[in-house]
């Protein structure tokens, strides 16, 4: 396993994060007692289907959950709890120490301001650079994220950029003030495959260059295999399995993880049927008792329908919430070869 995830203190430590929304059907938990750590310099993948709570987890950490939503638990960043931080300190952390990029780069950029101005604005808020210094840094950033003709394109508006260039611009804006942690909310989902690959490589390069930690929210296990050191699999608002990417890919111990891995097309020697997970994720208002995954699980027994499994450490750094993780492990990994990062 990669060495990043050992010994030293975590950069971000999330404990019992719970985000509830009141709906006509009562209070529902989009995120339910989620705990995880992100080590300095580590890339953590947060994986799950749509609606599993991955994005809400990120938004909760950054205090972006709006009115009817309520967040409890803690998210410690360098000794301070982001969830209780006052507005002034929070503003310094946001953008200055932790940056976030969004799934849809078109809507995440202000359509009426030139991209250069939006980079400068972040520099203005978080650095002491003067006008000339900010201008120089904006050019550097455009170069850094691989936007050609930086000087000219600074004056362009977001709609004059292609999808991939827009995401690069968004990354340039987010990274303007050298954050220590990047929260990436499905940054490549809206892009086509070749551009996806470029953006992923870019984020990894920048991570190395700037020494950031990255939390990568995605539903794409291919992306996880290519980029992440560790992954946490979410289902119905809870983390069901977490561990180093190589370990989890080689020996998934939760039936859901196994199902996800089986649903990824592979360019192997044999042609096999693509596995799919039967059924759909439960509505948050009607999460089944016991293990939330039990109605879709081929390993499920009576205990799964009554008792919710706890997230337990079954090997160092490998945690899983499944009553039958031994049987799941024995069934083997659907992934023949692990594409190590």
């Amino acid at each position, binding site marked *: 396993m990669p060495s990043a995830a050992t010994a030293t203190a975590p950069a971000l430590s999330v404990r019992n994060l719970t985000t509830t929304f009141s709906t006509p059907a009562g209070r529902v938990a989009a995120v339910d007692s989620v705990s995880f750590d992100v080590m300095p310099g580590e890339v953590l993948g947060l994986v799950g289907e749509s609606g599993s709570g991955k994005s809400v987890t990120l938004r909760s950490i950054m205090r972006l959950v709006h009115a009817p939503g309520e967040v409890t638990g803690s998210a410690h960043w360098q000794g301070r709890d982001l969830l209780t931080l006052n507005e002034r300190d929070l503003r310094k952390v946001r953008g200055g120490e932790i940056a976030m990029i969004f799934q849809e780069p078109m809507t995440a950029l202000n359509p*009426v301001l030139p991209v250069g101005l939006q980079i400068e604005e972040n520099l203005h808020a978080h650095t002491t650079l003067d006008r000339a210094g900010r201008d120089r840094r904006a050019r550097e950033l455009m170069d850094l994220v691989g936007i050609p003709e930086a000087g000219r394109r600074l004056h362009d508006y977001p709609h004059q950029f292609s999808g991939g260039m827009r995401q690069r611009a968004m990354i340039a804006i987010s990274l303007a003030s050298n954050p220590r942690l990047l929260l990436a909310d499905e940054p490549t989902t809206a892009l086509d495959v070749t551009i996806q690959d470029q953006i992923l490589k870019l984020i990894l390069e920048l991570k190395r260059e700037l020494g950031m930690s990255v939390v990568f929210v995605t539903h794409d296990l291919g992306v996880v295999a290519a980029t992440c050191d560790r992954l946490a699999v979410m289902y119905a608002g809870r983390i069901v399995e977490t561990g180093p990417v190589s370990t989890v890919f080689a020996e998934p111990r939760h039936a859901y993880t196994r199902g996800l891995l089986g649903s990824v097309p592979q360019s192997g020697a044999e042609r096999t049927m693509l596995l799919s997970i039967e059924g759909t994720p439960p509505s948050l208002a009607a999460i089944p008792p016991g293990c939330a995954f039990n109605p879709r699980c081929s390993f499920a027994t009576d205990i799964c329908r009554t008792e919710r499994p706890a997230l337990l450490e079954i090997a160092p750094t490998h945690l899983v919430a499944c009553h039958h993780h031994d049987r799941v492990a024995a069934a083997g990994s659907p992934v023949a070869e692990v594409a190590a990062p």
Partner: protein
Amino acid sequence: MTLTAAVTPARVRRARLFRLPVTLIAGGIILLISLFLGIFPWLVAPYDPTAFDYNALLGPPSPAHLLGADSFGRDVLSRVIYAYGLDLQIAVFATVPAFIVGSLVGALVGYAGNVVEAVFGRIVDAIITFPFLVLVIAIVAVLGPGLNNMYVAVFILDWVFYARLVSAEVRVQKRLDYADAGRVMGYRPMRIILRHLLPNSISPAIVYLMTDMALAILLGSSLGYLGLGAQPPAAEWGVQIADGKNFMNTAWWIGVFPGIAIVVTGLGFSLLGDGLAELLRTKK
């Protein structure tokens, strides 16, 4: 993008000009001419607007007085032209302060949401249940007749309409990713409101401003007609129409030509408003 990149900038600019909505160009031309007449009336008007010609009392259109003369023998054409300055001033002064204040308030209200928005909604309801003109007349009657008081009266009521438009738009915009992106980059709420949300929410208010300017000219003329706005002997279309009312059967030209000026100028603002709306829509 890649297609236009090969085209020269000058050609792009020309192509853009041709893509402007016809309504925008037509409205723009009408208003540019109006503005010219408003700023340099003496270059065009044949007479002083208050000069009496006792030989031409109630005189019909003739070579000497192209649009005739009024009951004091004043040249109607000259008075219509000199009135451009005053009526355009009414169009701007009666609306722009309301536009600015209303948009700012609307942005704050829309961003604050919840209680603030509910309270604001009740204020809006209270104001719009009364007929606008009746309220303006009531306020002017209390403050005293005259243009300045008319501006105050219109401002007291009119800002609400801008605030309502902008707050509705901000309420939508603040949920979009770029607003969250701003928050996540640690910008202050005021910065997000003024620099990010307001510019993205202002276009309906700008379009309404154009319509409102046309309405303001009509309102100014109505109040002028009622004797609550511009005071005689000032050349103002409403005042002129009020003058002409008494001579409708014998000297129709006194009231009809200022009326046409009101219609044409109002049309100019409306066309410009429509054109702007179209332009802003296509840009989005």
